[in-house]
């Protein structure tokens, strides 16, 4: 136990400021976001993640959001296990035809008002896989999409920015 504590002390805190902090416009957005989350989502935003056909590259970067550098949870954004507990759906991958029904049902299970974020090139426009006998391509071909975060895969900071932007558009709209 002492070794563990010593290691923790040695490591210190590595969490970085959110990627928006240097940019004045985005800083304002960050504040608005915080306020909006407080008002609209009871101080937290619950995301349900679904991989609808990705190569797992996007998934790795979604994972990275939880590492101590980004620690997404400190902004009140967390991942939940059930769509029934979610405010929004975060989808990666082109939608494989074999995942169509699962994606649609997951989306239906999220209580309204809800919104959908397509993360990654594949989710945005089909990416390298496009539309084929096996794939529907973009997520919006199956469920309505509110925000797209391009990149193959998008970096964690892109994902964070996208999340902030998605809330922003939701607040305005």
């Amino acid at each position: 136990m002492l070794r563990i504590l010593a290691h923790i002390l040695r490591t210190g805190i590595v969490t970085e400021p959110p990627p928006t902090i240097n940019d004045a416009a985005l800083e304002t957005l960050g504040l608005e976001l915080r306020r909006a989350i407080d008002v609209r989502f009871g101080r937290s935003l619950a995301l349900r993640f679904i991989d609808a056909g990705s190569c797992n590259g996007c998934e790795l970067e979604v994972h990275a959001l939880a590492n101590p550098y980004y620690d997404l949870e400190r902004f009140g954004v967390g991942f939940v296990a059930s769509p029934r507990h979610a405010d929004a759906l975060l989808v990666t991958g082109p939608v494989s035809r074999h995942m169509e029904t699962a994606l649609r049902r997951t989306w239906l299970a999220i209580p309204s008002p809800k919104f959908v974020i397509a993360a990654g090139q594949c989710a945005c426009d089909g990416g390298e896989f496009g539309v084929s006998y096996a794939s529907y391509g973009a997520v919006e071909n199956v469920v309505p999409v509110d925000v797209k975060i391009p990149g193959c895969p998008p970096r964690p900071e892109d994902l964070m920015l996208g999340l902030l932007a998605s809330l922003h558009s939701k607040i305005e709209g």
Partner: protein
Amino acid sequence: MTRFAWLPEFETRLQTAGIAAHAEKEAPPARALRVAPAEWGLAATVAAQYGCRWAGMWAEADEARMRLYCVLDYAGDPLLLSAEAPLETPEFTSQTPHFPAADRMERHARDLFGVIFTDHPDPRRWTRHRAWPEHWHPLHPDQAGDSPAPGRTPADVDYPFAPVHGNGVFEIPVGPVHAGIIEPGHFRFHAAGEPVLKLEERLGYVHKGIERLAVGRDPAALARLAARVSGDSTVAHTWAACQAMEGVTGVEVPPRALALRGLLAERERVANHLGDIGAICNDVGFAFAHVQTARLRERWQRRSRECFGHRLLMDTLIPGGVARDLAAAGRDALRADHVALRREIGPLFDIIDDHPPLDDRLVGTGVLSREHARALGCTGYLGKASGCNFDLRRDAPYAPYDTLEVPVVTDSEGDTAARVRVRMAEVLASLDLMDQLLDAMPSGETAAPLPTPPPDAIGLGRVEGWRGETLAWVRFDDEGRIARYFPRDPSWFYWPALERLIMGEIVPDFPVCNKSVNGSYSGVDL
């Protein structure tokens, strides 16, 4: 021993069994033999008895013929066995009864090509769910157009899982959508109380038609597709595909490019092992290790982006070389990183290795015996943790590993703790390899133009990815475009191993067992 010294003896064995085998066009480094379709299964029996490792199979077809290939490995030498049948009656005997590892790949070939295995023990579909009709095969030459049923795809609810009967036996269906952030797939547990009697996997949910998308691409576009077979193995798959294409075009890949590829592959290995070691610990509630390794992994990936332009190293390899050179400053930074990482993981790995509460959950959990690992064809950390001492980098070395001493760490326990130990040892070994690569980095070009391949050329690529032996099969058409691509991810063998090692374990230990194996869904759904 010289390469393929065993082959004459093996051919004699085939002959004794009444199988006529003909030498075929080679796909270096593989030798090739062809047998009759009716003897496809029997040839596998002979190979199994001879002690070959079954390393994958795939189909390909032209207007007249259906052809099957399988790779049999003996002492690191790949033998490419093929058989050919007329397209109207593509009938072969099955290799599954002799190599259980062949089961899913044969069913995959059946679903995608319409290959008929006359004595296959499992008539159920595999890759096809319900997106297209049973008798439409996306890779059959007669069915090049679109799928005949482009409407909504219903859920795959009628897949006949094998029932288990008995007093108090119940089923637990899980997936395709999982509670966490993981790829989709379905697990069907049969349990009596807590112990798992049987686990059956149903995969294919992320099938996105990679093999058909490859057809007609040029080499550069194939490399981009290969980079996306499995995002966590992007270097391994791209390298294997490039190797297959480079082998047949006779291009001399510059030594500097090869050294950089080695560096990239080791970086991929370290990143994934770091992430997984932490995730395994996290699954049994030891969040400390998870946070620490996630931190180290993040720093590692940032450096990858800085030096090579991509956090996961996608598209860093191109046919003929690498996409980007490593600057002198980058080289210094990497050296410093290696020193720093060694310093950090020393005490961290000590804790993981010797933390009684962790041992309580990992030691003896999810044991895969050496016999099963061998029979199922497992390579990589899964095979090594169960005592299978094989690593392409040492046993069939390709540049730059042919000039390096690759330490191969194995373990005999075969449990989750052993898989963690093997991964920790591989991280340390990779750091040493990377230092050696940096020290002896050749100067010069980083890519050579790929000449047009000869018509109908075939190539096999073999790379020791972080998950194990990764294969790529490529056939070119007459215009130098891709006519066939099959990437064989090590996960094909990992998934059946997971079904095996979970037997008798309690259901709550499934997540940690699954994590310690970490098969790729995308890599096998294709």
